[in-house]
């Protein structure tokens, strides 16, 4: 196809491709997506377009055994994709506020209730919570402040078979 183009045609193709790649950065996200969302393969790299604050909020899923020990439950418990899909979904479900975090909580609890061999390290978990935690990465990774500055419980559910009261709230 390209071999049939003359010099002018080649230059036009180069200009069009160059402008297409640059467009989202120069003229905004709405050039590639009417809702201003990220797109593919043309992108405006939204992750670089925001300032990262000193403290960071993250949604994640934790489990607790009967003695109150905490287990961090991985994204593989609630997504078929990778880690980034897992965290993106938690954030989106939290924004939607339509009870989807609670559904995710139940999905994880239901899976733990099956006592699968691959989940052996989590067999003691009796309660699952989807939480929103605030951390200072510098203090967390240097060991200065390993606990969350603040944590809000967004959904709480018992693992089937456990004797934990169902509910939701904050602590």
């Amino acid at each position, binding site marked *: 196809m390209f071999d049939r183009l003359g010099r002018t045609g080649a230059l036009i193709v180069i200009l069009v491709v160059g402008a297409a790649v640059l467009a989202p950065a120069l003229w905004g996200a709405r050039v590639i997506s009417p809702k201003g969302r990220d797109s593919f*393969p043309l*992108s405006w790299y939204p992750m670089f377009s925001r300032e990262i604050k000193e403290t960071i909020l993250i949604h994640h899923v934790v489990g607790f055994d009967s003695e109150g020990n905490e287990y961090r439950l991985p994204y593989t418990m609630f997504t078929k994709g*990778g880690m980034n899909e897992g965290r993106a979904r938690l954030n989106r479900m939290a924004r939607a506020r339509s009870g989807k975090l609670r559904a995710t909580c139940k999905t994880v609890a239901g899976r733990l209730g099956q006592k699968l061999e691959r989940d052996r390290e989590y067999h003691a978990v009796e309660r699952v919570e989807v939480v929103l935690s605030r951390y200072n990465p510098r203090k967390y990774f240097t060991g200065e402040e390993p606990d969350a500055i603040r944590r809000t419980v967004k959904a709480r559910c018992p693992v089937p078979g456990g004797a934990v009261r169902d509910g939701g709230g904050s602590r």
Partner: protein
Amino acid sequence: MSLVRRLIDRALLPERTPVPLAMIRFFFGAWMAWAYSGRVRTGFLRTCTQTSLDHFEPVGVVNWFGVEPLSEAMLTGWYDAMLVLSVLFAIGLWHRIIGPLYGVLVLFLLTYRNCWGFVYHTDNILAMQAVLVGLSPASDALSVDSWLIAHLERRKAAGHRGWGLDLLGTRGDPTVAHWKYGWPVQLIVLMITLTYSVAAIAKLGAQGLQWGTGHNLLGHIGLNGLWYEFIAGDAKPITGQIFEWPMWVMNVLAAGSLGLELFAPLVLLDRRLAVLFILAGLGLHWGIYMTMGIPFVYHLHGYVYVPFVPWDWLYDGWRRFQAWRARAPADDETAPS
């Protein structure tokens, strides 16, 4: 010739032999056939067929054409067709037909994969490169097509019918340069380097030159580390150490990566700059992987830099070496004793 015309010719329409395009075609197809089989294939199909439809958010061409979620059988069929076509693409068979089809198929499948809740920017270049190489005369040399054309032309010259010759496109001499082989390479290089520049523009748009101080880079490493720690199981052990590095190190890393990304398209002006760009790019992506655990797999293995390599120079050198080897014994035999 005017200065502008000379600059355009040098940067965008240079004369090249068909060898660089052929090497880009070969490495791209070989990469796709290798990297997208096995576990990656399983993960791809699992994500796109077992994820709840609630998470389906069409992007790019999937959005433009209003494509609905595909059945498992259909998606598996398309995916496996892409793997087979990757091999045919790599060896350069029926490129005139397979090239464009393959480009569209790779673009569609990679876009479809990104419709399930998260856009993987690591695949941006891959999807665009598939289309551009697919539309280029990339099998005019070092390909099954070029061998078939030579074979059929010999048969035709000997009075036989040259069946299928029309389907095969053209054959190029690997030693003869022409701008029609140069501009697609520069187009691919432009696309790749502009992709880096867009990332730099995004950083500058949000923070201006403040990005170069390294504070935001440190913030990204911390944010990413927290995600790995709480959602994936554990962060890279180096994350804690990075927070104890002197700030000037982050300043150098942030400013260096910003400069590399922003000025990447300058490699179009001088091929010798490509060597620096390849080394710096590999350093950038290996650095990102080691500090943040983000695997730009295509970049980490160096395949993304194949279009920057002066394959025509290397091919010419190899031919000279072969000629020297062939001549050397004869010279020895004629030498006086």
